[in-house]
């Protein structure tokens, strides 16, 4: 392979990352922010978002695409937090309490999600997306009508004035940044949420370990080819359900981490953007529908959020309107998802066509880079 070709290949394989890097770097100067400020923001946002993005990995291994159904886990986490605030469990104990309530719910929701997706093989993504919409209805029903009526809520301060249903904004003051600040760490001008980073690191270790055990191997086999995996005796449907359950549980924990850092919770809309931001991040990091790894997660979070930090101000300075920056950042978010889905589907079709052509010629040469 000549040097020129490998550069071309590098550019092609990393098109999304490079485009994004260029936009972000170009927007830094007009935003007028100092690099220290941007650096601190990125550190904070790494702690806030990485866990949620990591939740996407397992379903990708299992060949189920980007799990838009992770929103279900986020809802479970929010229900946990509502109870933690209601019971007045403060500090990191409140977070543990929220997770303890959220995890059983998210296991159940993940199981439902896996079951539904098994019935919609080949269009898991759009199904997960609609399922998240549907469950949003169930969540509203539960939080807006059941809590305070069928399920008692102790503190009336978090209820709507009519006596039932949770307020639109929930103040998380008692658990605010309790995980981030257990061990305060300041290096130079930067503050690090060190315990949050440790939790994220532990999850990374788990992912690496999980890929090595039998279940992880099965998952990869299912992801590569359902028919072959089935013939080899891998319980396909069960493995897929497990992948989704783990993803949903991780999304639940991730949402708790996200919200403790934010400090307030928009009860009825906090979860609606969870899937969008996580999916955009992992795709910006260079992942595709079929292939993703730990580096994609972190590169993605850094790049996406660097742009999110600078784009409103850049829009303000360049066009005299902060709204343009805001619309631009949403356009980039949706656009990058569309672009990488298109690039992936395009490439997959080309490879399939190439493989067919090769078969027709009767060549037995192995398909180069077929796994890529």
């Amino acid at each position, binding site marked *: 392979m000549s040097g020129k070709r490998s550069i071309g290949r590098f550019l092609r394989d990393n098109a999304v990352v490079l485009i994004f890097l260029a936009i972000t770097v170009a927007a830094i100067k007009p935003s007028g922010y100092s690099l220290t400020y941007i650096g601190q923001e990125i550190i904070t946002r790494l702690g806030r978002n990485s866990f949620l993005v990591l939740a996407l990995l397992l379903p990708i291994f299992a060949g189920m695409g980007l799990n838009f159904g992770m929103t279900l886990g986020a809802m479970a986490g929010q229900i946990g937090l509502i109870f933690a605030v209601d019971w007045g469990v403060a500090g990191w104990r409140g977070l543990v309490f929220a997770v303890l309530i959220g995890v059983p719910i998210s296991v159940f929701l993940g199981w439902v999600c896996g079951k539904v997706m098994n019935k919609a093989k080949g269009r898991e993504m759009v199904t997960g997306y609609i399922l998240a*919409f*549907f469950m949003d209805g169930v969540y509203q029903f539960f939080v807006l009508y059941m809590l305070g009526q069928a399920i008692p809520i102790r503190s009336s301060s978090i209820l709507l004035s009519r006596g039932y249903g949770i307020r639109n904004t929930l103040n998380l003051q008692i658990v605010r940044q309790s995980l981030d600040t257990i061990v305060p760490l300041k290096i130079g001008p930067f503050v690090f949420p060190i315990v949050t980073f440790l939790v994220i690191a532990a999850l990374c270790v788990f992912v690496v370990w999980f890929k090595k055990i039998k279940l992880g191997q099965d998952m990869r086999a299912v992801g590569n080819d359902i028919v072959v995996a089935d013939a080899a005796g891998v319980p396909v449907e069960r493995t897929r359900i497990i992948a989704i359950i783990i993803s949903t549980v991780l999304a639940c924990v991730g949402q708790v981490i996200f919200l403790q850092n934010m400090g307030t919770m928009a009860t009825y809309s906090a979860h609606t953007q969870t899937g969008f931001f996580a999916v955009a991040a992992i795709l910006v990091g260079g992942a595709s529908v079929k292939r993703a790894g730990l580096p994609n997660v972190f590169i993605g979070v850094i790049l996406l959020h660097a742009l999110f930090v600078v784009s409103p101000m850049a829009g303000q300075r360049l066009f005299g*309107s902060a709204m343009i920056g805001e619309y631009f950042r949403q356009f980039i978010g949706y656009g990058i998802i569309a672009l990488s889905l*298109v690039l992936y*589907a*395009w490439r997959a079709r080309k490879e399939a066509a190439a493989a067919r052509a090769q078969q027709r010629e009767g060549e037995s040469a192995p398909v180069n880079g077929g796994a890529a």
Partner: protein
Amino acid sequence: MPDLKKFITDFGWPRIIIFLFLVFLFIAAPFVNVRIDASIADVLNRFGQSAVLVLALVPMVQAGCGLNFGLPLGIIGGLIGATMSMQFGLVGFAGFFGAIALAAPFALAFGWGYGRLLNKVKGEEMTIAMYVGFASVMLMSIMWLILPYNSPKMVWGYAGKGLRTTISVEGYWSKILNDFLAVRIGKFFIFPTGLILFVCFCAFLMWLFLRTKTGTAMTAVGSNPDYARASGISVDKMRTISVMLSTLLGAVGIIVYEQSFGFIQLYDSPLFMGFPAVAALLIGGASVNKASMVNVLVGTILFQGLLTMTPSVINSLLQNDMSEVIRIMVSNGIILYALTRKTKVTK
């Protein structure tokens, strides 16, 4: 008996439940002081308002491109036409049809590009369509701010530029179809003749089109691409035509919607307009790869009936505002149901 059983499996339980629920709402209405005649007028009005948007989904379903979650792209075309028609000061029928005429080239151009894109990603259309739609809505949001519109009716008063979030079409072509030949019976019931006629006309044109040579070829591509290719039909060309048609109808649909609603809604409001249309089509009995005019008309009536009746009846029945939750669960539940049916995925 086996006939009934077959009918139920074909039609699907969710649809039967929704139908029975709607019947129940109409029976319950008089008991909670909801006027039946006003409700029916309301349902008819809303049926006409959104039927063309639902109709817009049919060509792509028929050509095997799946449910067009990218409908916002067509809607954007319609918005461009509507705002331009107002900018040029066209009023009355000239304004309404002018809006359609101005929207058409944009919609067709968008549809052509969008169709070419979808041809490259067969099998993944629905997810990609959704995000292409979202991205284009956001891109247009920037455009609404910077395009040189200057009609004082449409731009922000203090800045003198940038379109408003909602623009009233009052005095231009508000209710132009609704009021055409409208028949008033009693105090509460108005039959929007012009609107219903327009919808029927569009549906009839689509019905005719599906029976032309091109229309049959398109359906063939949807039901069996390999067979279609073998009989000399260009699959990609047919798919592109279906997408262009769908986008064009989306543009017409939103203009019809606006004249009845009375406002043009810009910026991120088109984001989720595709989903109710999809839900309506599916409630009417369509599947991911088969849809007919009957599906469109029945589905829109059922879905809009549900949207009209649940707030008034359920809210007075239960003394709360649960209708929104019911709407979310019904419309997305029916889409989920359709997605999980066993159908062949076109590769």
